[in-house]
């Protein structure tokens, strides 16, 4: 297993370099100019100087290796420096956003907590709701509970967040005035009351996103449970005289979790990508919103870095899902 993991990690290096190259070339070849948003009153020669100042005067075969060097060498050096007070970086150039002129990673670090809190929490909540729903739906197939579950997940699949989000705002913020419609990022949690405020502002975005996760994961859970409930070994377990809870929770659930865990693991990168639409609706200034603004402003370093980080996460989660598969299913051995 360890050999397998290390081999896969090594193999992911060329994969990621290739992904980085593709993203870079896509951004390079795409139309669009970082200077496009500048006022027309700026003379062309000044614009040209600004372009050169951003490093755009160099050809791509200089800029791409430079970005790689900044991403893989300079940025980690800065992290080590800030963590241990050393001076490896020695004032080297970091990846700088075209728009804000501040280091890209500083901005990402500022946006990360909001996204993790809202989107990450919605994923956890969604999965926690989905698992019992899936289990009960499968165990009581075609019952009222199962039919309701099917209906709700159909809604979750088919109603987009830009509708459900706005609907929730209209109901709970505008009509009932129970919950705030805007997520206040500057809110500091330091007492019980402020914690309650934080909870109240989180509820709506979290539930909008959780509905989607629940719909998906509960379907997978139900299908997987149904698959295993009809297996012969379940009948064996009943014939052994095991109690129904042992049969369902130990024999069926453990075997059903294998594919579901893969689905859950592969969904995790999406958390870090933020939920672009939902973050826009509730004004959560997370990563999704950052990416959208960077795209609109042709902020190439920012887009490049965020997209590449997502690619790294997807590759890593694939690896983790594969390793988990091997741990959970004794029939799969990688050595």
């Amino acid at each position: 297993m360890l050999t397998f993991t290390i081999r896969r990690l090594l193999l992911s290096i060329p994969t990621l370099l290739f992904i980085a190259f593709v993203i870079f070339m896509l951004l390079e070849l795409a139309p669009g100019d970082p200077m496009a948003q500048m006022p027309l009153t700026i003379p062309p020669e000044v614009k040209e100087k600004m372009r050169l100042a951003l490093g755009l005067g160099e050809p791509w075969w200089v800029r791409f290796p430079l970005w790689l060097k900044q991403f893989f060498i300079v940025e980690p050096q800065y992290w080590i420096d800030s963590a241990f007070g050393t001076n490896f970086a020695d004032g080297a150039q970091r990846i700088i956003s075209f728009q804000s002129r501040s280091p890209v990673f500083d901005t990402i670090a500022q946006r990360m907590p909001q996204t993790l809190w809202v989107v990450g929490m919605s994923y956890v909540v969604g999965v926690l709701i989905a698992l019992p729903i899936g289990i009960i739906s499968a165990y009581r197939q075609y019952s009222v509970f199962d039919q309701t579950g099917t209906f709700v997940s159909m809604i979750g699949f088919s109603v987009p967040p830009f509708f459900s989000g706005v609907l929730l705002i209209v109901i709970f913020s505008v009509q009932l005035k129970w919950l705030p419609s805007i997520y206040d990022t500057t809110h500091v949690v330091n007492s019980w009351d402020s914690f309650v405020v934080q909870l109240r502002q989180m509820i709506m975005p979290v539930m909008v996103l959780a509905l989607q996760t629940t719909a998906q994961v509960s379907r997978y859970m139900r299908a997987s449970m149904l698959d295993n409930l009809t297996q012969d070994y379940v009948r064996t377990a009943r014939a052994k005289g095991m109690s129904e809870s042992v049969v369902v929770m130990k024999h069926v659930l453990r075997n059903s979790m294998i594919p579901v865990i893969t689905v859950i693991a592969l969904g995790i990168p999406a958390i870090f990508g933020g939920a672009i639409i939902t973050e826009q609706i509730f004004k959560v200034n997370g990563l999704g919103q950052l990416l959208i603004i960077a795209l609109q402003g042709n902020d190439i370093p920012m887009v490049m870095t965020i997209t590449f980080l997502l690619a790294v996460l997807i590759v890593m989660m694939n690896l983790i899902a594969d390793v988990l598969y091997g741990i959970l299913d004794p029939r799969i051995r990688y050595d």
Partner: protein
Amino acid sequence: MLDNPQKPLVSVRDLKMHFPIYAGLFRRRVGEVKAVDGISFDVMEGETLGLVGESGCGKSTAGRSVLRLYDITSGQIEIDGRQIGDTPQNQLRGMRPTMQMVFQDPQASLNPRMTVEAIIREPLDEHTTLTPTEKRDKVAELMDAVGLNRKFAGRYPHAFSGGQRQRIGIARALALNPKFIVCDEPIAALDVSIQAQVVNLLEDLQEKYGLTYLFISHDLSMVRHIATRVAVMYLGKVVELADRETLFADPQHPYTQALLSAVPEPDPSLARKTERIILQGDVPSPSKPPKGCNFCTRCPAAMDICKTGEPEYREIAPGRFAACHLHNPT
């Protein structure tokens, strides 16, 4: 049972297991599959009752219903002096140690994520108060009894061959010292050389532990080898039940005669002489059994009465039961 002074360990009376069919827009109940439709038999203590019949005749359903792995439609089942026909499943759990089952597919009937030791030990965890050391000893003892190396206790089922997996299944069934074991085609998924090993193992264990078997199979020669008495099923009903010797020598029911004539004869010169009774047509659907006798659509000896009246299942000679109008008392 004049010539059989033993007392029955299992006695089944008029057992019915109908599976509902739902169809249409509102999934209304439109009918039922009469998988087992009123069967009665006794299994004596220490004997092996063979249950034979072609695919889909309800053998396996009958075996599972006797152990109440299904909630049966109607009928009485008495095992070891206790009526279990209508006992709710949760009360039935306590009685499961007496009655166990060996399943057909040794691959699918073992949980792929449990080691052999965990599979055999689980019933001990549930039904006994042994200490962990005693449980481990018991598991090792059972593995010895079925001829599995103790060293394999930590392995998972997928690492074993079909015959070894069936041995695990048998060890698992034996764990709680049962009296009655339903063997549901335990050898059907194995190749012939392994079949003999497993059947011999079952016989040895029967002798050693004084077990009673209900042996379900479609392999007539294997049933002839292992069974004390044989019951023949057709379309959810027992058509004939008799001692092994009598049944194979002198079958009374036309279906049994046809079934036995289909057994391959190893001697070519004899094989040429034997006359096969070839049945025409297919088995009717168990959801729409024919009127009268279930076998009347294919019976070479069908009479008018067969198409109207259902034959009664009765004792036609001491210890011999059949359901056929040919044997109506005159």
